[in-house]
């Protein structure tokens, strides 16, 4: 469980996060949604410790990040898996080496043990035959799956994904969303996903945080998001015709 309390973050004069509080629960896919520029990435990077909030605290199962010393911070970071927006695979390494990287860095596992674990997670993301390919030789969707494999290989307690399906076709998006959800439940991970894709919200939105102008404007589940009267949410969610129709159908009770 990650508890965010009253987090504020500014860059120079402009305040991007203006006091955000929420709880991301363990074993659930927690979504951060909101318009472009609303501060989703800044919030996610604050959770990761890449940005340091000026005000507020972030605690990981009781460990308050800003109060940890450097060693404890690095220790905590080995419990974190992150899927970056652009996958951020190491392009000088093969797929298998990318996935093996956290194990080689942070565990004392032997080569056969590492290989076994890498085979296992690559199979888990349905990429059995790509071991020896370089990131530049595989498609964007495959890169995302490799990034997920790398993020989960060292059994993280916390998984963060920045727009895991931007730039992917709808089918691949849904595959990736469901993969993340399954993994979250299977290993009881606290997962936080940053997205503006309403399809993801419908698929896997167990807990949704709606950000607007650096403030929490709304929070709830995917069932609730279609019933809420909150104007900002309605304006965001139903900006497309498709979802307007979905909402009408919902309200009629389908």
């Amino acid at each position, binding site marked *: 469980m990650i508890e965010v309390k009253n987090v504020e973050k500014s860059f120079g004069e402009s305040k991007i996060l203006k006091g955000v509080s929420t709880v991301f629960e363990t074993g659930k896919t927690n979504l951060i949604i909101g318009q472009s520029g609303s501060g989703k990435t800044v919030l996610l990077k604050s959770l990761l*410790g890449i940005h340091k909030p000026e005000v507020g605290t972030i605690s990981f199962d009781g460990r308050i990040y800003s109060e940890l010393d450097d060693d404890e*911070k690095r220790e*905590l*970071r080995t419990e974190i898996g*992150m899927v*970056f927006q652009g996958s951020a695979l190491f*392009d000088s390494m093969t797929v298998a080496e990318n996935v093996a990287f956290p194990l080689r*860095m*942070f565990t004392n596992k032997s080569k056969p043990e590492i290989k076994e674990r890498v085979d296992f997670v690559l199979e888990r993301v349905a990429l059995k035959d790509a071991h020896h390919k370089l990131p530049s030789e595989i498609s964007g969707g495959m890169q995302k799956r490799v990034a997920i494999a790398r993020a989960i290989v060292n059994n993280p307690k916390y998984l963060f994904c920045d727009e895991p399906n931007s730039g992917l076709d709808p089918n691949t998006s849904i595959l990736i969303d469901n993969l993340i959800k399954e993994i979250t439940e299977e290993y009881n991970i606290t997962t936080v996903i940053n997205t503006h894709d309403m399809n993801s919200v419908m698929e896997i939105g167990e807990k949704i945080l709606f950000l607007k102008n650096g403030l929490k404007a709304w929070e709830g589940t995917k069932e609730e998001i279609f019933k809420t009267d909150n104007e900002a949410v309605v304006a965001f969610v139903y900006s497309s015709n498709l979802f307007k129709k979905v909402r009408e159908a919902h309200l009629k009770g389908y």
Partner: protein
Amino acid sequence: MLKEIFNKQTKWSVMRNLIFKEIDDLIIDSLGIVAFISFFVGGVVSIQTALNLTNPLIPKYLIGFATRQSVILEFAPTFISVIMAGKMGSFITSSIGTMRVTEQIDALEVMGVNSLNYLVFPKIIALLFYPFVIGISMFLGVLGGWIAGVYGGFTSSAEFINGAQMQFIPFHIVYAFIKTIIFALLLATIPSFHGYYMKGGALEVGKASTVSFVWTSVSIILFNYILTQLLLGS
């Protein structure tokens, strides 16, 4: 930045591979071009000296002497380093810069890797082998001078070798290698700095490489001046 590079070391089993890779990319890969340039520039220095010694009273062995002095004191340590600021430097800046703009450095940090140590430390270690490159350059430069001098009919082999051994001051070699080590540190750190702290996208990677080349070569030239004044000037 410097402190972080040596802090919180990456596991040795991983670091060892990184160092071998950097030695391959930075040192081994440069040998060909360094050998080529040194050999031919050494030849040209020898020919130029010969052509400028028109007074019959000036002994021919000065050709060997002048070639040796200019190659060992300046050409090999300084000018090869400026060329390497272009070759190694832009390689370092663009490879680290690409990792920055594609969030690979963030990925390392998020995993808990000290990215400065991971990326820069192996380059510094690899460049401890840089004096070997310069040593080879010195040897080939003088060799090139000898071959060009003798086969161009400007001097006899004995005269050249005699000149190349004349008034040999061992401290000159020390001076040249002190310079080389300092230049190696500049070559490893300045381009890394420009790559690591860059912002933007692919276009900026290109710009950062250019800026990095300018700064690296300017600092090599400045340090060359300062070190020469300090070590030989007094």
